[in-house]
């Protein structure tokens, strides 16, 4: 954790709303986080918690309308990219920031060859000629572990298996050697054995290329194995943030704790009954005036219904750099970790 270096990505108070017929939905609510060079930040949350929307909105990938980024700063290498024009933003996408999406089956354009799709950003951002781009594309395919890369450039996405397609997506994301790679549930649609392959690949690429990664997932298991730091999101807000070991060993937010308990273990003691979080996540219509988790929270008290808790640091480091939590309840430290 290179705290001394300036973060490549620094997001401050990001707020995104969706305008629907039923009113505004506050999908991202004052989210702040940073990403250090070479760091892997895991973002955990259930569907609808705003983790994807956060990442999409900071780089202008949300369809507008209905989405609108309302407030905040997004500093990419120190430059506020919410203030630049759509054209300038386009120059950054794919060049400084690479994306890998969840479903490799639909994320590749079915009618163009894989080579064509890898070469596109190379030609656009790096100003390569076609033949240069082709050479580089072959290198990239080889890099992500696709055998016979030069030949496979001419193949269409449907001729690849799911895992291979996700490798292609990674090759596209890495094509221009980005500072930041945003991986949005990159293994969710894959089988476990393939997921394991992809995770290994990302670890290896990280070693080789050293980019910073934001890894969005709902699978705490994946995070545990790969992330340096974890951010837990609920209802469009960051509820807890900590280095990975710290979070798993000493979760402080009731939601994080519940989440960790719901996962049946493969190795530990088999519970006779699964822990559940009762109820449903709320839909965030209107700016929150209370803690969004209070309805499902076992520790909720009066204040939770009147005041939306702010993130507060649990150690000496400032919010975002150590362990912080957004909860009114002062949780006792857990002894022996989540699985105790």
């Amino acid at each position, binding site marked *: 954790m290179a705290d001394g270096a300036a973060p490549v990505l620094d997001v401050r108070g990001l707020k995104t709303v969706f305008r629907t017929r039923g009113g505004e939905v506050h999908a991202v609510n004052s989210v702040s986080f940073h990403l250090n060079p070479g760091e892997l930040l895991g973002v955990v949350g259930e569907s609808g918690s705003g983790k994807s929307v956060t990442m999409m909105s900071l780089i202008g990938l949300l369809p507008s309308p209905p989405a609108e980024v309302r407030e905040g700063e997004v500093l990419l290498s120190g430059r506020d990219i919410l203030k630049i024009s759509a054209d300038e933003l*386009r120059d950054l996408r794919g060049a400084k920031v690479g*994306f890998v999406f969840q479903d490799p089956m639909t*994320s590749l354009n079915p009618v163009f060859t894989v080579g064509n799709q890898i070469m596109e950003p190379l030609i656009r951002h790096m100003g390569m000629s076609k033949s240069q781009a082709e050479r580089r594309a072959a290198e990239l395919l080889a890099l992500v572990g696709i055998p016979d890369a030069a030949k496979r450039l001419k193949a269409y996405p449907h001729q690849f298996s799911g895992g291979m397609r996700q490798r292609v997506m990674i090759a596209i994301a890495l094509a221009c050697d980005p500072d930041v790679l945003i991986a949005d549930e990159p293994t969710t649609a894959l089988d476990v054995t393939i997921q394991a392959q992809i995770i290994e690949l990302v670890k290896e690429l990280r070693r080789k290329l050293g980019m910073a990664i934001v890894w969005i997932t709902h699978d705490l298991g994946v995070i545990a194995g790969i992330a340096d730091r974890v951010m837990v999101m609920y209802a469009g807000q960051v509820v807890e943030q900590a280095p990975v070991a710290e979070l798993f060993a000493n979760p402080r937010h009731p939601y994080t704790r519940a989440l960790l308990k719901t996962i049946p273990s493969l190795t530990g003691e088999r519970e006779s009954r699964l822990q559940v979080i009762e109820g449903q996540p709320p839909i965030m219509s209107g700016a929150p005036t209370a803690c969004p988790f209070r309805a499902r929270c076992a520790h909720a008290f009066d204040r939770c219904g009147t005041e939306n808790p702010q993130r507060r640091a649990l150690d000496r480091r400032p919010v975002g750099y150590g362990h912080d939590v957004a909860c009114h309840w002062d949780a006792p430290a857990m002894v022996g970790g989540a699985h105790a």
Partner: protein
Amino acid sequence: MLTFTLRRLLVAIPTLLFISLVIFLLVDLAPGSPLSDIPLTVPPDVRQRMIEALGADQPVFVRYVLWLRQFFWVEPAYLLDGWFGTNLANGEQRILSWQARSPVFTIIGERIPQTLIVIGTAYLVGVLIALPIGIYSAYRQYSAFDQFGTLFAMIGFSVPTFFSGTLFIIIFAVWLGWFPTKYDTQLEVTDWASFVEQLRQMALPVMTLGLANAAVISRYMRSSMLDNMTQDYVRTARAKGMTERTVVLKHVLRNSMIPVVTVIALGIPSIFGGAIITENLFGVNGIGAALIGAIHASDLPMVQTLAFIFAVLIVTFNLIADILYGLLDPRIRYD
């Protein structure tokens, strides 16, 4: 792909034979006589003689079989003779139009060029107008442009060509005097002046038909674009930093074109079929005008032949549309 094509071809043969029988019987059973034009003073026995001279006195199935032979053997033989100077046909009788007493295929051959030029251009113009309208309507869904496009398409659907054509004649030919109302089929394009003349005389029929075609195709284009705009790969393209132009005109368009191209291919037989009313209105005298003329004159051989050619074209272009789909969409595997 090849076996798929061959298979479809094999299936097409019985289909076509069946269609030919139905067409033959339908046209044959329909009332009307080629002799309705003859003055009423001509006595009945003379009429009877004339009907016999037309060859209409044989039993219907004998005529069907003879007609099939004509259609599939004699006429192709004449075609080959015409190309290679062979003598396959051996002077056999050809299918004669009752109305004009000349071989049906010669007449059709004379008419195909103007039909293809005028109706084909109209189709092309329709497609060329429709695609940008459809694309932009989808890109800016629910915008004023899109609403206008919907209105335009609805008007295109609901206004018959005999109405819009007459309207154009009155505006552009009578009031403004820009274009002629009668298409000169004898005009040969040899120089710039005659080319301009050709363009002028094509203007009205092309406008009339082009608008009708554009209305339909623009709707298809729009809905196909809308289907594809929300696909994940579009987000991928944007995430790669591609310009909106590339995203829409390369990624979305290419995928959207797959169903639209097949729709366009399926519409091509109608080019050969001519546009009955438009051709008639502007004196283009193509296949469509021939068909309506033959129907009015009860010219059975002509109607049967045209109807069957049309059926062949529909079956063929159905096949072509299927194949195109496969060619355009790399995901399709036919075997």
